[in-house]
């Protein structure tokens, strides 16, 4: 027989009190694990959503005010195309994609349309090669940012032109090729491979974009330089859309962009990012608040149960002392029990919290939750520490009992 045998058998002697004290600790850990799991998964989802949103920073001419994020290029003001090159060469951390645009009004079969000039990424390669900067082998931005993989201007061959709808940029686009939004394609009755006459020139329909629910659905996209040439606008653009990593969009990137292009206006959806980050931060903080409150209640419950346990077991403790148990042994008897309760509470709480998050996350919040094993360690350590702290005074009380109480009339 060992000390742990005594602890274990005594626990099962009074399972109700054991389960009561276990319950609050377990709930505390379960609440933390469930909310943290959901928070972290929510952050991942938001990050994913932001990525799929495409460009999240806009560079506009200085005197433009942004009314609609998706029609940021429909203001008639222009700025030099050379800004794009400046940004590409600056290689700022967090910049994944640069997508300059120029919008002009045009007609197709007497239907008024918006023709948007876009610059395929192959153009960046040409510029880079011309300037000898070897950007082909390096990302547009830099690998110093937060992006898991910085977008390379040189690697996009497998990309479909239809990806323009989500990535806001395209790898290659011929000078006489055009991409149609979903609505305008339907309106014009045009399909892939058809010829369209735009501003006196024939363009071949490269692809039709999937429906996005934005103004892009009613646009036509052609090579930026073709649009500049045909419209006679010269080497200018209306906007540069930048796809940046979320964290950088809310961080230093804006300052860096403003410093690089002081004569422009930098608009970001940082507010959106910040709001989402703040909500997640609030959830995360709340989980710690719940955790703390429940652990406090759990600690109080354990302390109360332990004090009652010491009172209940006075004769047993006295007997053990009469038989040769020292204060250390008696203390270990109670702190050992507290450790067992803390570890079990942490483990069970982790399992319950994880199951709750994995099951309810997708059902209630539409978030796929991945279990976080690191919370097991946090839960078990915290629950054990709380349990030990709560049991410290009861254990001291037990160790300080007068062994004479074992005698009949003591």
């Amino acid at each position, binding site marked *: *027989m*060992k*000390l742990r*045998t*005594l602890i274990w*058998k*005594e626990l*099962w*002697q009074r399972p109700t009190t054991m389960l009561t004290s276990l319950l609050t600790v377990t709930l505390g850990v379960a609440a933390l694990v469930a909310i943290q799991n959901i928070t972290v998964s929510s952050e991942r989802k938001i990050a994913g959503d932001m990525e799929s949103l495409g460009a999240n920073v806009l560079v506009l001419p200085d005197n433009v005010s942004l009314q609609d994020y998706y029609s940021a290029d429909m203001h008639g003001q222009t700025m030099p195309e050379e800004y794009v090159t400046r940004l590409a060469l600056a290689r700022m951390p967090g910049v994944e994609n640069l997508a300059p645009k120029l919008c002009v009004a045009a007609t197709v079969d007497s239907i008024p349309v918006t023709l948007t000039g876009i610059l395929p990424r192959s153009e960046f390669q040409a510029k880079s090669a011309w300037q000898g900067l070897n950007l082909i082998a390096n990302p547009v931005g830099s690998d110093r940012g937060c992006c898991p993989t910085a977008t390379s201007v040189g690697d996009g061959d497998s990309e479909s032109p239809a990806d323009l709808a989500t990535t806001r940029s395209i790898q290659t686009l011929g000078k006489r090729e055009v991409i149609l939004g979903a609505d305008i394609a339907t309106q014009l009755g045009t399909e892939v491979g058809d010829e369209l006459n735009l501003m006196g020139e024939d363009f071949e329909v490269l692809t039709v974009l999937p429906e996005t629910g934005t103004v892009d659905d009613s646009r036509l996209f052609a090579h930026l330089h073709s649009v500049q040439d045909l419209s006679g606008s010269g080497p200018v653009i209306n906007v540069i859309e930048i796809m940046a990593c979320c964290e950088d969009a809310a961080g230093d990137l804006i300052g860096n962009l403003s410093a690089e292009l002081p004569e422009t206006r930098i608009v970001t959806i940082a507010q959106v990012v910040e709001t989402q980050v703040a909500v997640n931060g609030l959830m995360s903080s709340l989980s710690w608040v719940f955790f703390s409150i429940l652990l406090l209640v759990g600690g109080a419950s354990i302390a109360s149960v332990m004090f009652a346990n010491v009172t209940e077991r006075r*004769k*047993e403790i*006295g*007997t*053990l*002392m*009469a*038989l*040769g*148990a*020292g*204060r*250390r*042994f008696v203390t270990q008897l109670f702190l050992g029990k507290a450790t067992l309760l803390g570890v079990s509470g942490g483990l069970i709480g982790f399992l319950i919290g994880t199951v709750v998050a994995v099951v309810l996350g997708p059902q209630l919040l539409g978030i796929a939750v991945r279990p976080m094993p690191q919370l097991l360690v946090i839960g078990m350590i915290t629950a054990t520490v709380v349990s030990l702290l709560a049991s410290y005074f009861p254990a001291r009380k037990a160790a300080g009992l*007068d*062994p*004479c109480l*074992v*005698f*009949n*009339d*003591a």
Partner: protein
Amino acid sequence: MYQLKEVTKTYTRRGETVTALDHSNLAIADNDFVAIVGPSGSGKTTMLSVLGGMMAPTSGQVILDGQSVYDLSIEERTAVRGEKIGFVFQTFNLIPYLSACENVQVPLLLSGKTPDEQRKRALEMLDRVGLSDRVDHKPNELSQGQQQRVAMARTLANDPQIILADEPTGNLDSETRQQVMEYLTEFHQDGRTIVMVTHDSDSAAYAKRTIRLVDGVALDVKDARAA
């Protein structure tokens, strides 16, 4: 050799001082069998507690084998108790959630024996008190007589030199009482010192000496069963 030298023990209760032992002197030789008798409140249990190293006297000394027990630290005193002294209690004081064998193992666990050594010794002791067939029974599955025999097996587990018994027959019927006293006599015959507090004159008759406590003072009554 056990000696009480001018031992006084006073308690303060509700502002009043009660003297449980009053300059008591007592010498108990090795292998003595002493019955301590006296009316309720005469200080019998106090004397047993003081002898057991569990209650420091207000003044005076308790000498065991030439060593002043209360000059030792609490931990040293606990160790002496574990090694040299065994207790028999009126209410047996078995741990309810442990089997008979595990109850006997407790003092062996406390003295640092391995689980195998504990089990082997516990089975020997239970065999000695005639309970080989009850080793895995919990206390509540045993009769009172059997429970007291388990308690006596536990007392013997560490082979103590001294057994302090507090009303060992107080809760038993006459037949079981006789059986328990015969076991104590047997332990005495093994060479152990027995100090027994009792109200029962029949039980006291098993002792070699009877000490009567009157108002906290120990008086030798007779040399019982003088050889």
